[in-house]
């Protein structure tokens, strides 16, 4: 038993975090908003590709780093902190390992950062980064098929987080190239996508908390820093609490995926519930504790808050994942009882009508 990020994985994440701190500030996020200069983001993404970011989960013989999901969590947490507006989870966690496994000729350009990839479905639900992506990895029934940009019709959708490049995708069923099929392959890919998103949410939450702590120490009202008021302290303590209890769940989900544990799906859903709720709380409390400053787009906080809202709902929101967990735990949806555990119903009332004391200890 050793439950902590290994030194190597932490060092890799720290090195990339250093690069992100230098190259990817709030101005870069704004560059990806409508009317900005998204090519600046592409340039930074190619720089990160140069140090092997998209190749993280690609096996070494295929030109990758050959690492596993244990490395994914700390690395993508660093990306979350930066707010880099790129399809990081889609590429690193889902696309690159699948392209490698399928021997796709696009792998090389994905690993150099020249090709941008996203993941979604053909249909009415908007797909993030679809308006900018060169490659669309679309789920159709039990298959994942890879479409090139020209093979699908795109209808851009204005989005709350302007950097998400949302578009509705219409693609011909059975078009593109078959990349993966079957519940095992699709399930694993989806779990990695959820995991990557959880890590991004943790990073975003940490970033928002950091900005807010800084703000409430500086901002003076009634002659004192507002961070000296208990109401503010307690709100931010709750944010830290939520983040610090979500982080181990995300790390454990990554471990379970890497180790091929049978409960990996359950752990991943649990991580998504905790990470989504923590990031949403962080966004809400950060905006509140910033006062009117938090209610503007001039200050950078909204960039992270809007991303957190998007990612909390992406890859299944907390309600969806709670539902998945409920099924795993044998709790059915509409108030019906799972029959497997009914062999020994607990006695509720004795003959005298007094409650029977159940075996219990505090």
């Amino acid at each position: 038993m050793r439950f902590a990020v290994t030194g190597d994985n932490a060092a890799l994440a720290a090195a990339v975090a250093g690069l992100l701190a230098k190259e990817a500030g709030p101005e870069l996020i704004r560059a990806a908003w409508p009317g900005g200069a998204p090519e600046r983001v592409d340039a930074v993404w190619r720089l990160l590709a140069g140090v092997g970011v998209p190749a993280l989960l690609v096996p070494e013989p295929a030109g990758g780093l050959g690492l596993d999901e244990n490395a994914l969590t700390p690395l993508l947490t660093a990306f979350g902190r930066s707010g880099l507006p790129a399809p990081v989870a889609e590429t690193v966690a889902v696309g690159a390992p699948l392209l490698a496994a399928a021997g796709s000729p696009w792998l090389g350009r994905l690993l150099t950062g020249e090709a941008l990839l996203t993941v979604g479905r053909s249909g009415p639900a908007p797909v993030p980064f679809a308006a900018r992506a060169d490659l669309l990895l679309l789920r159709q029934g039990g298959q994942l098929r890879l479409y090139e940009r020209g093979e699908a019709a795109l209808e851009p959708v204005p989005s709350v987080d302007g950097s998400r490049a949302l578009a509705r995708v219409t693609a011909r069923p059975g078009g593109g190239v078959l990349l993966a099929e079957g519940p095992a392959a699709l399930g694993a890919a989806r779990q990695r996508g959820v995991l990557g998103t959880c890590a991004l949410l943790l990073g975003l939450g940490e970033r928002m908390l950091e900005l807010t702590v800084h703000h409430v120490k500086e901002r003076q009202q009634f002659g004192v820093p507002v961070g000296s008021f208990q109401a503010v302290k307690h709100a931010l303590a709750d944010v830290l609490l939520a983040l610090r209890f979500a982080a181990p769940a995300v790390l454990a989900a990554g471990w379970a995926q890497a180790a091929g544990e049978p409960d990996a799906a359950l752990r991943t859903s649990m991580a998504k519930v905790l990470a989504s709720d923590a990031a949403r709380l962080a966004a809400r409390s950060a905006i509140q504790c910033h006062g009117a400053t938090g209610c503007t787009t001039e200050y950078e906080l909204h960039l992270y808050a809007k991303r957190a809202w998007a990612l909390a709902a992406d890859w299944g929101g907390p309600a969806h994942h709670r539902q998945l967990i409920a099924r795993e735990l044998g709790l059915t949806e509409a108030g019906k009882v799972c029959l497997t555990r009914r062999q020994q119903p607990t006695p509720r009332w004795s003959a005298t009508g007094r409650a029977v004391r159940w075996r219990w200890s505090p």
Partner: protein
Amino acid sequence: MDLTWSPAEQEFRREARSWLEANVPSPALPSGDTREGFAAHLEWERTLHRAGWSVVSWPREFGGRDATLWQWLIFEEEYYRAGGPQRVSQNGIFLLAPALFRFGTPEQQARILPRMAAAEDTWAQGWSEPGAGSDLASIRSSAIYDEQSHGWRLNGQKTWTTRGAFCTHLFGLFRTDPLAKRHHGLTYFLLPLDAPGVTVRGFPRLDGDEGFADVFLDDVLVPASDVLGGVGQGWPVAMATTGSERGLTLRSPGRYLHAATRLLELARTAPDGPGPYRDRVVQSWIEAQAYQLFTLGQVTDIAEGRPTGAESSLNKLFWSELDIRLHETALELLGPEAEAEGPWSKGYQFALSGPVYAGTNEIQRNIVAERLLGLPKG
């Protein structure tokens, strides 16, 4: 990174499980917070001790089995899984003992610890006073050195003392320097509750059990050898224990994992199923798992020499509020039956004290904000 248990740890788990399955009393003992229940629990503590399970993490010379923190977590999981009785020796073995191991003289350790492990002596915590709850440093009970008797004369009142009416001994903080302010000039004393001048009056907790007591001290003579950690050192000695009280040694994940399992059973067997409470059941289950994972990370940190410090406040906030939500959901599932006395309604009334004891959650949030986030003191 490895979230699996070693063969040795699995063997430890098997040994604990088979012993507990064979020995945990059934039907359950009456509440340990009543006089007759306490006596039954003492018998259980002695049974645990004879088999070497009462204080697994202590050194063998004091009655333990030198278990690692990992093994301790395993034991706790198995203990709750088996439905083991509440630990009436808890405040001694989990709160005083860590301070004794760190600050006690060899003589004190040899004299006190083996009897504590064997539940021959049971210890109550004498910190709170009528005017000193969350504001522990405002303690007014005093100790004055008596040259003639080579000891200290203790005066004052302690209150909300858990199981004080049934325990044999008290560990507590007393002001030894009347001129010193706040957390200076306090001293940590150890004393028997049958000493001349001690009056104990039990009173009921929220659930009606006589689990609390006032302890009145009227010129109680305590020998100098029963000062723990040095005169005037009471605050640092006590703070070393609050880490244990707020953190994982008082409330291990096993307790909440088991409670979440019971909640799942309740939801599955409720006449109408979980119904609209399904998400809340799931959420409590998730949070119990999250507490375990958080703890595994913490124990890794401790095992690798990274101190946890103020993080124990995060533990305390999390488990105490999880416990309430979990019980509230159970009571919802029970519907009209929740009004009848039962384990969930009793558990709920106890859970409500979680955000109060061991330092209120308001104080814990201040600690988190000031020490972990660096916000200014207000």
